[in-house]
Structure formats: structure tokens, C-alpha cells
């Protein structure tokens, strides 16, 4: 029986009175790739934010390796090894690519040189632009920088919010290669993806988030075999 790394137990979360997530129950198991799919604006990003401590959890619990993390500060959650690569432009615009990557290792600066090397090898465009300020990068390059920065943090659980958004197809392949490699090495991955088809065959577990609730959970192959679910929620 594989342990759950991250347990979300009937957690609800929201912003100033408005409940976005309603009694969510899911687990990201250690060493597995768990995918959250679903239509836009239905709570996927809010879920990751709640796990990272950026959005308050109004009821229920979130546990990491059995210990509660839902009342912790965001920096404490990062210290415990839960790293998020957020959607949207959350780079430090006046810092160079290099400095942004260094900030990624802020909480965990061991083995800095190797990790930097790894990120530059994986994403050579970043190496090319290492001294450029992040605010001047193209949309896709910013995405790559965000992912590279997340990889710099190490950690036990890596959460990615739509990593493929705005990336050239070949880069998407490379990013997924890395994600699958990380999984092979035992990292727990929580992935929010628009493109259910792409992730279905690779994810160990898929959860469908619709209107702030888990509408369906199961294996990728099962999801693809249920066209009515795919049609209703994902509009494929």
C-alpha cells in the first residue's frame, strides 16, 4: 500500500466569503503523478494555492506525510518540501533569469551548482538568456523560467499549474520528460492540466474538478473509456 504524501481531507477554501472549493477529498500518493483536470475557473488553481497556504482553508484538513499543514504559513509549507510552479507571470521582473532561478533555491540552497546545471541542461533557452531581466522574456520563456525556478527548489512534492501553457510543442515534450523522470526518481507530482488527453495515459491518478467539487476520480485509461464524462466536463 503506497502511502499518501499529500492528503486533502474534506477541505473547503475560498476568498472573502466566497467558497471556491467544496469538501475536496483527494490524495497525491508518494512517487506518483496525480493530475487534476477540469474546465477553467472551477477551482484547480485555487486548490494548489490552498495547499501552498496562499488561500485560507475554511474547513477540513490538508496533511503532508500525516502532519497537518493547512494552518501553516506559506514559507513553512515550502520548507517542508511542497513546491508550486504557479500559473501566470509570477516571476521577479526586475531580476535576471539567473537571479530568479537562485530565488527558487532560497529555502533550500544545498547543491546549488548541480541543480542550476540540471535546469540549464534541460532548458537551454534559459542558459542563453541567463542575464536577461525576466520582465523582457517572451511568454513561453517566462513559463520555462517559472518551471526552472520550481525545479531549483528540490523538495518532496512538486505541484505544477498548467505547465504546458504557451509552450512550443517540442518544449512541452521536454518538460513532460522531466516530470516523468522526477516521478521515476520518487518525487510526488501534482499536476493541473487543461489537456486531459495528453496526461491521461501517463497519470497514475486523475481527479476531475468541476465547480469546486471532485466530480470523478480514477485512472487515465478509465477516463478515456468514459466518453460521456470527457464530453460533459472537458468538452472534447
Amino acid at each position: 500500500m503506497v502511502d499518501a504524501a499529500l492528503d486533502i481531507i474534506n477541505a473547503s477554501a475560498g476568498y472573502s466569503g466566497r467558497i471556491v472549493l467544496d469538501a475536496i477529498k483527494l490524495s497525491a500518493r508518494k512517487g506518483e503523478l496525480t493530475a487534476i483536470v477540469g474546465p477553467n475557473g472551477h477551482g484547480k488553481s485555487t486548490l494548489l494555492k490552498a495547499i501552498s497556504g496562499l488561500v485560507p482553508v475554511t474547513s477540513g484538513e490538508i496533511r503532508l506525510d500525516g502532519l497537518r499543514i493547512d494552518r501553516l504559513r506559506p514559507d513553512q509549507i515550502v520548507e517542508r518540501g511542497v513546491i508550486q510552479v504557479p500559473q501566470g507571470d509570477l516571476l521577479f521582473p526586475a531580476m535576471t533569469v539567473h537571479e530568479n532561478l537562485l530565488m527558487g533555491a532560497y529555502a533550500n540552497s544545498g547543491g546549488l551548482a548541480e541543480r542550476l546545471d540540471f535546469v540549464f541542461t534541460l532548458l537551454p533557452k534559459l542558459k542563453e538568456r541567463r542575464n536577461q531581466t525576466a520582465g523582457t522574456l517572451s511568454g513561453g520563456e517566462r513559463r520555462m523560467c517559472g518551471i526552472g525556478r520550481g525545479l531549483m527548489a528540490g523538495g518532496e512534492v512538486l505541484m505544477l499549474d498548467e505547465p504546458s501553457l504557451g509552450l512550443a510543442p517540442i518544449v512541452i515534450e521536454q518538460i513532460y520528460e522531466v516530470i516523468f523522470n522526477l516521478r521515476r526518481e520518487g518525487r510526488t507530482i501534482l499536476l493541473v492540466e487543461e489537456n486531459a488527453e495528453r496526461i491521461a495515459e501517463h497519470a497514475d491518478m486523475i481527479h476531475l474538478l468541476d465547480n469546486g467539487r471532485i466530480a470523478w476520480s480514477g485512472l487515465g485509461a478509465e477516463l478515456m473509456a468514459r466518453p460521456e464524462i470527457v464530453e460533459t466536463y472537458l468538452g472534447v
Partner: protein
Amino acid sequence: MDVLIQIVASGLTLGAMYAVATIGLSLVYGSLNMLNMAHGAILTLGGYICYAAIVHAGLHPVLALLAAALVCALVGLLIYFSAALPLLRAENFETNIFIATIGIGSVIENLMLKGFGPYPIPQPLAVDGQVVIGNVHIPLQNVFILGVAIVLMAAVAILLQRTSTGRAIRATSMNREAAQLMGVRVGRVYAQVLALSGALAAVSGIMISSIATLTPVMGGDPMLKAFIVCVVAGLGNVYGAVIAAIALGLLEAATQYVLGVRWSFATLLLLVILVLIWRPYGLFGKQQVVRL
């Protein structure tokens, strides 16, 4: 030529004092989005603590300066815990903290009024003597002030660029949420910035009062000028603020000479208005087109 040297010397001194007063204000605005209206009062407090330390406690001037900086750093921390922290959790932080710090500044000012009386007191931390360039006699005090300011600014620059604390401060100013996701303890950054700002204000207050005198209300004018510098430079831009402060100091010295002291402030403000019409976000402000 002599006049020029005189103006430049005065201007640099003024600029240096403004620069030290402004750095703290700029840092606080950049990272917390907070206009600290108690800045002037803390500045004044620094001057008085230094005076009290030398005259009443018999401390060596350097120790007195350090004591003043320390006390004001603690005041900065106090502001964080008593006002900024609770208000951050609510809506309308910017407006509320603005008003709250006006209150805090008022309290500090009145405490000094009560403690030291309303009459001007000379600041004992002064260096005697002069430097002579050509036919111009420049007080050593001015050179001393300039020296201290340069050292302080270099120290802040090194802090910001080379230390992880500094990087955390810069990251928080650029994008608070992203900084949190990197594991930056944002609350601690705020406290550090407010403490640093307090210490810098104290030094600035000591310097200013060493040329003028100590009165409980002396902080209002430098604070106003510090705000102007911040706005002209672009709110939150620390390096730009230093450049703008020096430029403003030189400008003030020049207009004081040409038009007389009573016109200098008005002229300054007029120039500021013109600059802001030309560049609404400040000279170095974030006015580039956002990459959509």
C-alpha cells in the same frame, strides 16, 4: 567658480541627507506598499536620542549614534507589530496604514515635546573645522555627513544585492505571492524593512539636526522632501531615489542661491510637477509597456 563649489558642496550635503532619509521610505513602500507617515517623527526621535545619549548619559558620539539607530529600529519593529501586521489582514491596507502612521508619528512627536520641550536644542554630534577649496570654506561637518551617507548607502546596496536577506526584500517588493512560494517569510521581511528604515531615519535625523537644530517638529520638512524624492524617482525604486535625492539637493542649493531661501521650496515643487507631467510614474518608475 567659488560660488559653484559652494553650491555643489551644499547641494551634495543636502542630497546626502535626503538620500539617507529616503532610502528607508522607498524600501518600505516598495516591499509593503506602505507610506510611512511616522518617518519624520522617527527621524526627529533619532536626533533627540543621540542628544540625550551624549548630554545626559555621557556616551561617546559614535555610541550615541548607534544607540539612536537601535532605538529607532525598535520603533520600526513596533510599528510593524502594532500597526502593519494587524492591518495587513484587512482590506484597504494602504489607506489604513497611512492614517495609522500619521497617528503614531503624532504620538512620538508629542512625547518628544513633553520630554525635551519646544525650544530648539543644538545637536552635540558635530565635527568642528573646515576644508578649504580655492576661496571656499566648507565645514568639515558637511564632509563628514557626506562620508557617512556614502558608507550607509553602500552598505544598503550590498545588503540588497549580495545577501539572501536583501534578495528576499527585493523579491517581496517585486511579487509578494511569488516570494512566498519561494519560501520567503514575508512577515519577517516587512519587520526587517521597517526596522532598517527606522535606523536609517535616525541617522538622517542626527545629520540634519547637526546642521540645523533639534526641535520636536523638525521631521516634517525632511519627510516631505523624502516623499517628493520617492515620487520623482518612481515609488519603490531605491537606487533611483538616491540619484533623485542628490539631484534635488543640488537643485535646492542652486535655487536657494539664485532666488533666495524662501523661493527654493516652491521652485522645487514646480520642477517636480513638470517632471511628473513628463513622466507620470517617476523618472525611473515602472512605466515601460507591460509585455502582454
